[in-house]
């Protein structure tokens, strides 16, 4: 059993059974008419062979096909989906097991931010009174490999982080389309012993990435048993379009038998209806289409229902994550996945705010408390993301780790039972007859057992300044000073010998490093 994550005992059922069935029916109807617009020939022929009706067309520069998928094709595909998926890990105790009908929720990072936000304390002098004050100055830097290694190393140490999705986009001068994936996967795997989940930018590198994973897992079969890497494919372009290049990756991964998330991310108000019913009906149809292609390519392959529905911001059509509709969409999708008995990948904790602070805290805390209550197996984007996934801030990730801890505490069971009631009556009676009528002594047991929440660990001392970011910055320095748990010298040696394209500077055992 997976010991990571947290059990949400009574998942919140936003939709009742009848409503779930109505959404299911609506999605299946949409998949039949208008159907999907597919740009990938092999997916089209898989669907056609299974019973879909196909009509070819031309969209701009590309060949495309209208595919009308009857409900039975989708249902048969759903029948072969495994309801339990394991995300493997370098350390066996860090494996994440997601069960479609289970209630264990796991939190992970993401996405691929272009920027890394650096916090630098600087001393300023007041023009008014000459007093000095230390203020955290923020600086946005382009993402690179070094930042990726640092964030994987940080992620290793965040106790509420269960799986790692590469969170900064590597934009080093020596990174090209031809070597990006191998370096991203190596940078991740070498710095964290938890499950690594990622997209692949270039299908030609898939084989190399898988070989690297085999070396780490100890062989081909060992990798299937302990998939230290899992994949994400954004195979859908909303509304209802299947992207050629990504569909090809999806099929290749399905045939390798490795876990893959079907990620579809419509924006309510631009690429999907903004109302909950319309959004959920469409995004659910999109997820089902992706799952069906995956299962047709390899029945029984491990697959995850990844719905990432967001809302459009009304003044510029950018994504919006910290709003109630976002929670509605995501909670409903978690229920749909559960209904189909497919493990679910959901989202919480992205700040629309550009920098850490009050706005970010409000937005993040709001979705951390709401979305996991629907008990999706995986929650991604949960650490350090700001500016609607454009920026990663490591200090923010530490703060988010704490917020997730709070949310997890919230889901605990109430503990009401006969024994507790008897104990309560006895305690009250004792206290009422004691000299000061204080309960303090009775708190000690829970305190020692870690059953009392510790409170906010990053409180500053100032009476007129919020110093949280400065305190967290110190904490980050402590965490970064710890030695990473690199892959062994032997494994690194084999990887660097066998896998072309790896940058020597990533090798921790390199002589002149």
């Amino acid at each position: 059993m997976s010991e990571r994550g947290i059990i949400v005992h009574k998942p919140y059922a936003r939709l009742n059974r009848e409503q779930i069935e109505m959404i299911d029916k609506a999605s299946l109807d949409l998949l039949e008419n208008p159907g999907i617009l597919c740009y990938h020939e092999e997916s089209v022929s898989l669907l056609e062979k299974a019973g879909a009706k196909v009509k070819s067309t031309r969209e701009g520069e590309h060949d495309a096909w209208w595919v009308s998928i009857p409900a039975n094709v989708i249902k048969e595909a759903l029948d072969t989906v495994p309801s339990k998926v394991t995300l493997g890990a370098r350390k066996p105790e860090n494996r994440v097991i997601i069960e479609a009908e289970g209630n264990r929720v796991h939190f992970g990072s993401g996405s691929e931010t272009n920027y890394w936000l650096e916090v630098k304390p600087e001393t300023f002098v007041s023009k008014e009174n000459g007093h000095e004050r230390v203020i955290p100055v923020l600086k946005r830097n382009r993402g690179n490999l070094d930042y990726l290694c640092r964030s994987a190393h940080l992620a290793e140490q965040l106790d509420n982080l269960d799986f790692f999705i590469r969170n900064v986009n590597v934009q080093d001068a020596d990174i090209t389309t031809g070597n990006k994936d191998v370096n991203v996967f190596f940078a991740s795997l070498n710095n964290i012993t938890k499950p690594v989940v990622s997209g692949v930018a270039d299908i030609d590198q898939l084989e190399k990435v898988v070989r690297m994973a085999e070396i780490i897992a100890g062989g081909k079969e060992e990798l299937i048993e302990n998939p230290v890497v899992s994949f994400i494919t954004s195979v859908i372009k909303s509304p209802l379009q299947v992207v050629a290049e990504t569909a090809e990756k999806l099929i290749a991964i399905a045939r390798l038998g490795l876990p893959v998330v079907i990620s579809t991310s419509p924006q309510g108000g631009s690429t999907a209806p903004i109302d909950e019913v319309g959004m959920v009906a469409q995004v659910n149809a999109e997820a089902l289409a992706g799952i069906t292609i995956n299962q047709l390519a390899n029945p029984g392959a491990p697959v995850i229902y990844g719905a990432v529905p967001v809302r459009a911001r009304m003044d510029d059509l950018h994504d919006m994550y910290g709003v109630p509709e976002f929670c509605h969409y995501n909670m409903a999708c978690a229920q749909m996945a559960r209904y189909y008995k497919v493990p679910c990948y959901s989202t919480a904790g992205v700040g629309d705010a550009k920098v850490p602070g009050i706005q970010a805290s409000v937005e993040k805390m709001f979705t951390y408390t709401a979305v996991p209550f629907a008990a999706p197996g995986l929650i991604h984007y949960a650490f350090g993301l700001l500016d609607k996934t454009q920026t990663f801030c490591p200090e923010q990730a530490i703060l988010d780790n704490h917020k997730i801890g709070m949310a997890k505490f919230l889901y605990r069971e109430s503990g009401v039972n006969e024994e507790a009631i008897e104990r309560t009556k006895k305690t009250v009676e004792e206290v009422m007859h004691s000299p000061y009528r204080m309960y303090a002594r009775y708190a000690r047991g829970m305190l020692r057992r870690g059953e009392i929440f510790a409170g906010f660990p990053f409180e500053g001392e100032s009476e007129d300044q919020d110093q949280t970011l400065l305190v967290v910055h110190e904490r980050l320095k402590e965490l970064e000073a710890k030695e990473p748990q690199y892959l062994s010298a032997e494994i690194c040696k084999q990887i660097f010998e066998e896998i072309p394209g790896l940058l020597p500077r990533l090798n921790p055992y390199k002589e002149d490093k």
Partner: protein
Amino acid sequence: MSKELIEKIVESVLQGRRNKDDEGIEEGLAGEPGVAELVEEALEAGIDTNDILLNGLSRGMELVGQKYETGEYFIPDMLTAAEAVEAGMAVMEPHLVREGTSGAKGKVVMATVEKDLHDIGKNLVSIMLKGAGFTVIDLGIDVPAARIVEAAEEEGAGLVGLSALLNTTMSNMSDVVKELEEKGLRSQIKVIIGGAPTSEDFAREIGADSYGKDAFAAIREAEKLLNN
């Protein structure tokens, strides 16, 4: 009479109603004539095309812009209004061609560059440019440089607008600039770029003429580049 009709066009733009079937922002407008029908009527009544364009469609869009600035209108309102202007322009088109003034503000070829599928921002820019009176030929997504240049040449466009959302595809923008140069078209076809990973610096680096942070900047810059 003519004034009244022009006012109705303005009102229909504000309501974002392309034709009589469209709902407006206010309830109960479906069934009433929309921009297409009103422009038709105005042309039949012999109202000057310039008058319809400037005091009707453009004036309507200007008011929409003002309402956006004051926070009364949002992007969905702007897009819908721009589509209404486009519907009016489509009705005007044959008349403008006859008068030899087609493409009121100039022609723009828009595209998301090769290997990039993002188009929410590009579509927003295309629709808004149309709403502002430009003729826009939108080539869609994942468009190779050669195709963009070919279309710009064929269409006699004065401006090419390029969008990229991936830092791996933004380099394809420079291919378009190079291709224009190779074909000797660079002096007559200007290039504007946009999309989250791009910047003013990047535009300079690849030799593009301009960078637009959002759709409003796109309109401003297009007006400058096409000398309106």
